[in-house]
């Protein structure tokens, strides 16, 4: 163990949460790339990822279901950290400072900041839209039960929700890269005291209040 590892003392995600997150992440990458393959001809070559066009058509919806179930299970465990409070509205007004590395001007964040909470709700909404529209356009099992007008609407809605979700996840991934120390929370589960103090100070106080530190 090097010196830096010794700093990672606060548990942010349990092993179960981490495994769950990476099931969601990997299935998201697979459905997003295979979905883009069917969305725009420029990406049709991505069907090779799942073994060609027909295999993409067969597997895409099942992988999507894995993603949705896994994320909804995950969301049950983090739901209570995502309620909006007054601090969050102030945080959103100060987003310019957040993005300019001037966090001293920004209200303290809890376990999640307002941006993360918005991401949480947009993922929940997008996944619900994708699930409902996806069932309608799942030709082999379900489309026969729906009128053609609804199938057309669902096709458009499915693309729209996927588009919003992809943009949201691009932001999510970028934030993890930009805010150093965050990725370790999802790979090893622990963050340093300084990371928690700097980025989620209210949460830092919360978790250090009860748990005796070494």
């Amino acid at each position, binding site marked *: 163990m090097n010196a830096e590892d010794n700093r990672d003392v606060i548990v942010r995600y349990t092993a179960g949460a981490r495994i769950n997150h990476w099931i969601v992440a990997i299935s998201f990458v697979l459905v997003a790339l295979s979905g883009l393959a069917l969305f725009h001809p420029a990406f049709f070559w991505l069907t090779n990822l799942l073994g060609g066009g027909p295999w993409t058509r067969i597997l895409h919806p099942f992988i999507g279901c894995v993603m949705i179930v896994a994320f909804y299970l995950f969301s049950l465990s983090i739901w209570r950290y995502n309620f909006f409070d007054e601090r969050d509205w102030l945080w959103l007004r100060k987003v310019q400072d957040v*993005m300019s590395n001037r966090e001293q001007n920004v209200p303290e964040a809890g376990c999640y900041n307002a941006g993360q909470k918005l991401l949480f709700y947009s993922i929940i909404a997008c996944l619900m839209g994708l699930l409902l529209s996806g069932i309608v356009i799942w030709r082999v099992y379900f489309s026969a039960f729906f009128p053609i007008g609804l199938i057309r609407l669902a096709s458009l809605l499915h693309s729209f929700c996927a588009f919003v979700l992809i943009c949201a996840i691009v932001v999510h991934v970028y934030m993890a*890269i930009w805010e150093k120390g965050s990725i370790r929370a999802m790979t090893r589960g622990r963050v340093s005291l300084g*990371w928690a103090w700097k980025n989620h100070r209210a949460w830092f106080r919360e978790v250090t209040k009860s748990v005796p530190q070494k």
Partner: protein
Amino acid sequence: MALQSLDIVRRSATTLPEPEVRGAFTGQVAKLIDTTKCIGCKACQVACMEWNDLRDDIGTCTGHYDNPHDLSEHSWTLMRFTEYENPKGDLEWLIRKDGCMHCEDPGCLKACPSPGAIVQYANGIVDFHEENCIGCGYCITGCPFDIPRISKKDKKAYKCTLCSDRVAVGLEPACVKSCPTGAIVFGTKEDMKQHAAERIEDLKSRGFDQAGLYDPPGVGGTHVMYVLHHADQPELYADLPKNPKISPLVRLWKGAAKPLALFAIFATATVGFLHYIGMGPNEVDEADEEAARRELEKKP
């Protein structure tokens, strides 16, 4: 049909031109179905089965003459029978041979995500290349006439080819050849329109004031056209749409949404990249660790 054609004017999910050096210089083709001459013998259905080697399952009687009761992957054409009581109180038996209309602006081709699974030839025929079909059913979503059917066995989409294999070697479609009353004729689209005009004039002289040609402009015209006794009410003919067009939802989904969405996704990623390069990462430094430890020590 074979892929070596040199007369493909449109190909699904493809952004560059296809081999199209051969044109339809003698005119595009059309099949004209004269519902006023049709006797409902179903010879066209049988001819379609024979030429294309298709055999549908033996179905069940649903109380009317339609047999089978719907199009399927094995039944690419179907006579639909409608009993219509006209305002005078007389019964009219309206019989329409249903099948692919071969739209000039095909909704199936627009919706198809698989390159080359649907093509349109210079002569106007819209053809499915099943070897490229992935079975997603988007063609059904795009079609304004409810024509393509996905096989339950191989999950590929099928529909009338307008006998593109026969037409390519100068023969007429099988249904045309078999029609005993001359209700189905085939030729250049111009000739078919002219023939239809003569038929309509004749029908009008016999009291069918509203007789007319069905060549709907909403899909750019079709390469299968009807002569109808009641051209003002095409819905009478087993719900033939009055003004079919590609749904605006499908147009948006397969039109503006594609470049806009890709642009927005790339723009989001680019903004992130520029932000990282311009602003630098948000790093936890020694001072933060120190501050955190100080705060902990303040506590009892």
